């Protein structure tokens, strides 16, 4: 005999039926949307209004200081320009070396493809400050590449070139990833059609694939550019005396020159918001690529030999330049150091204890952040997909992209101004303010995958459940949740990993709390290289595990009548 134990589920279903009524839906919609407006829009709006309110103070500090005149403003202009050309150059180089890699990973079949794919994703898991440290060791110290040539100092000293290298390495996986996703979503049949019509490979890519992937590629590039523009953790380590805009924000914040910091944050945020608006409204209208065709030249360049060369170069550059540099830190720990690592850790300043509490802080902050964005982010994803509010949906969709585009240090500073003592005075710099900032910038990582899996899932299943008599909420629990749970898990892991690796936003709001990425920056600054490397390795290994789980849960699988 079949048995069903349903005593308490009957009660649960009754509760769900009650809560499925429209008025509760309106209430939760209001709470969720209000939450994100407060967390994301609040600080940004506040920073603009602060600048307006304290205009005279800024005027006297930045433009008309009695001692230095407009020196502040000149510095800001210089660092903004620097940040721009570094981000621009890094993204340009990444597109050049990343596009062949993305094509290789999406349009070719070969043995070990999965493995290469995972390797390309690996630098994504490395927290940026650890990445910066790795670059510093490899290119800028005698332990790295210079050691092979028997030199006593590194190839490059800390400064613009190292920053550029760091930014190339750190944006590379982002670029490849976003290119890969657009290429995967573009059906190959159009390319087949063009091929059978006699178009050589290069022409097919330029005239067929190009227009199809244009929007996605531009969006990916702009987001990578914005991330590079706002990168703090790695840049601090490799910058030396050379400053970029986010570093200046951190410095001004440390020196408590709040109005000036607010002014610079506002400029950075404004620029990034303009870029984001650019993606949303203008990428469709770019007239690239050129329609003209050069048959002989393109046919020559499409020969299999060039294709092969391109593939080999893509893999070669990735392995030799990006992968080795990013992973070098893992080998550094095992090199003999002076003073020995154990002595350094057991020294008078209790580095062991610091390492341990920072690690716990990182995990605790990451965990709480993930929990909050999960509870608020999943309903938000449903609101964006399911509500039919037309313009409002587009607005909300853009709203959750904002934290992706604006520099985290600027966002962190804006949040500090809003929630901390200069603003609402609800949180002191410290644990909870860090959590709050992390919630703001990790939310898109949570919401995006959930949105995409909801869009892909089969609406018919929910309709079937409703016609069988289940209420909205029961349908959600029994039908929708099992379908989208991998999307939620993927989002949660990404949010956790991002929180774990964040430096810039944490530095401006941390008070005397330390997380691992910040600890790495601190220790590199005080020349405790061995301990910094150990901290990096611990956090990297942990991030690898997360990445592996992420790849496992988001692997493609067969879906019924998808």
């Amino acid at each position, binding site marked *: 005999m079949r048995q069903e134990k349903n005593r308490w589920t009957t009660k649960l279903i009754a509760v769900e039926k009650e809560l499925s009524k429209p008025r509760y839906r309106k209430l939760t919609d209001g709470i969720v949307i209000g939450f994100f407006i407060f967390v994301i829009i609040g600080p940004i709006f506040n920073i603009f209004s602060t600048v307006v309110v304290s205009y005279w103070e800024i005027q006297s500090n930045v433009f008309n200081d009695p001692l230095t005149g407009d020196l502040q403003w000149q510095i800001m202009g210089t660092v903004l320009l620097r940040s721009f050309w570094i981000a621009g150059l890094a993204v340009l180089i990444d597109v050049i070396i990343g596009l062949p890699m993305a094509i290789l990973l999406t349009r070719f079949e070969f043995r070990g493809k999965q493995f290469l794919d995972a390797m390309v994703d690996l630098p994504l898991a490395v927290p940026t400050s650890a990445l910066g440290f790795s670059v510093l060791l490899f290119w800028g110290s005698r332990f790295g590449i210079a050691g092979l040539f028997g030199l006593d100092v590194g190839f490059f000293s800390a400064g613009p070139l190292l920053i550029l290298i760091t930014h190339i390495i750190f944006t590379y996986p982002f670029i490849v990833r976003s290119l890969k996703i657009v290429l995967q979503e573009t059906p190959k049949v159009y390319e087949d*059609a*063009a091929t*059978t*019509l*006699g*178009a*050589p490979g290069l022409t097919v890519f330029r005239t067929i694939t190009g227009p199809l992937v244009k929007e996605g590629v531009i969006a990916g590039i702009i987001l990578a550019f914005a991330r590079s523009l706002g990168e703090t953790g790695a840049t601090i380590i490799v910058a030396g005396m050379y400053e970029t805009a986010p570093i200046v924000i951190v410095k001004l914040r440390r020196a408590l020159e709040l109005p000036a910091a607010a002014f610079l944050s506002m400029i950075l945020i404004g620029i990034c918001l303009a870029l984001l608006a650019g993606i949303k409204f203008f990428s469709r209208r770019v007239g690239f690529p050129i329609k003209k065709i050069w048959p002989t030249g393109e046919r020559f360049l499409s020969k299999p030999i060039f294709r092969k060369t391109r593939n080999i170069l893509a893999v070669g550059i990735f392995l030799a330049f990006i992968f080795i540099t990013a992973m070098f830190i893992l080998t550094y720990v095992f090199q003999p150091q002076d003073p020995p690592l154990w002595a350094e850790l057991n020294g008078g300043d209790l580095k062991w204890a610091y390492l341990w509490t920072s690690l716990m802080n990182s995990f605790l902050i990451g965990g709480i952040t993930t929990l909050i964005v999960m509870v608020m982010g999943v309903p938000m994803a449903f609101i964006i997909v399911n509500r039919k509010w037309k313009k409002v949906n587009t607005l909300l969709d853009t709203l959750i992209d904002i934290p992706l585009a604006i520099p985290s240090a600027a966002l962190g500073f804006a949040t500090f101004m809003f929630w901390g003592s200069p603003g609402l005075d609800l949180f002191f710099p410290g644990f909870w303010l860090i959590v709050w900032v992390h919630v703001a910038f990790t939310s898109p990582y949570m919401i995006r995958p959930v949105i995409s899996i909801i869009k892909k899932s089969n609406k018919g299943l929910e309709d079937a459940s409703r016609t069988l008599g289940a209420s909205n909420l029961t349908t959600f629990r029994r039908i929708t949740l099992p379908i989208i749970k991998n999307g939620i898990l993927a989002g949660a892991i990404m949010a956790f990993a991002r929180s774990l690796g964040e430096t810039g936003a944490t530095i401006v709001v941390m008070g005397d709390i330390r997380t691992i990425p910040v600890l790495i920056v601190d220790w590199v600054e005080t020349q405790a290289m061995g301990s910094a490397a150990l901290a990096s390795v611990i956090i990297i290994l942990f991030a690898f595990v997360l990445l592996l789980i992420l790849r496992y849960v988001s692997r493609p699988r067969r879906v019924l009548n998808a």
Partner: protein
Amino acid sequence: MPDIELRGVNKIFKGKVIAMEDVNLKIKHGEYVFLLGPSGCGKTTTLRVISGLEQPDNGEVLIDNKDVKDLLPEDRGMGFVFQHFEIFPFMTVWENCIYGLKVRGFSDEVLIEHGERALKTVGLLDYADEYPTVFGNPGLQRLGIARAIATGAKILVMDEPLGSLDPKARLSFRHELRDLVKRLGLTAIQVTHDQDEALAIGDQIIVMRQGRILQYGPPEELYERPTSLFVANFIGEMNFLEGFIYPNVLGNNYLVRLEIRGPKLYASKDHAIFPDFAVDQRVVIAFRFEDVYVYPQNFDFNKPGHERMEEELNFIPANLYSMRFVGKTTRFIAKFASGEMIQATKPGTFPYQLSPGDPIILGIHPHDIITFEHPKDLAYEIDLS
């Protein structure tokens, strides 16, 4: 002279899915050839191997007697027509049409001449400057064909070109397609899983199953003389009955007994797959629905014009199970006393009043019966999926 030839081609996907197994075929110049089979039988893969979009694991592909292994798909000069059209959405009708000429670097005059001729052939010249969104599915496929023939391709390769059209449009479009191919003197290879389409407009039909070619011949041959149980079941509609060879032989026929004490039927030796079955050997006999005659029990065979029937036909008593007029034909299901079901179709309406359960007589001509060796697993052999 064969235009296209495959010699011993194998193709395995991901090391386990066998898409082509030792495929050999020759397609002559100017022929309209159909690749027919259930989904997943390897017909589309065969098409993609011919056009170069897939490389075979081994074996040779020859076009005009030349091995084209090293010829990239863009240099094979074949017109490919897709099931879902694959019209470039961001180009106008005209830009779509001349794309193949443009990428080969032809001069503007050639572009205009060939492009206009191709659009005119399919009747879309008036829409040249529109975007393809103005078309429904038939219009999109016309453009797909124009785009493929504008390059001057002599071989047209089509992957279910009518698969995305609705049934009525499909019926008229297929004759249009054959006219066009014949008018331009093209060699055409078309994949379909619609057997009517293949029978209606194909010169030759290749039936594939699980990566193998089962039979290759003109439509009449496949219909009249299928060489395997699968082809017999796949093309047209057939009854399959199990039985064994009985010793009595009349003329050049086998006598097949359906089961112990069951009805006996004469089956022509000429139409057996092996001409020398031994007595008591198990066989499967197959005959088409439309080759079964249905008579009421009291039918007068002595009436003038009916005498010869009695000598030639096998007569089997049965009971009517159901009878329905399905438009154009009447469909009968009859039941033998032993429980086997036989289906029959007759054109038009049936002149006699019958109701379910009534005794009837079925007549089958020995020449219409094909005798097959009994396979190990009959259900598997005739499985169409």
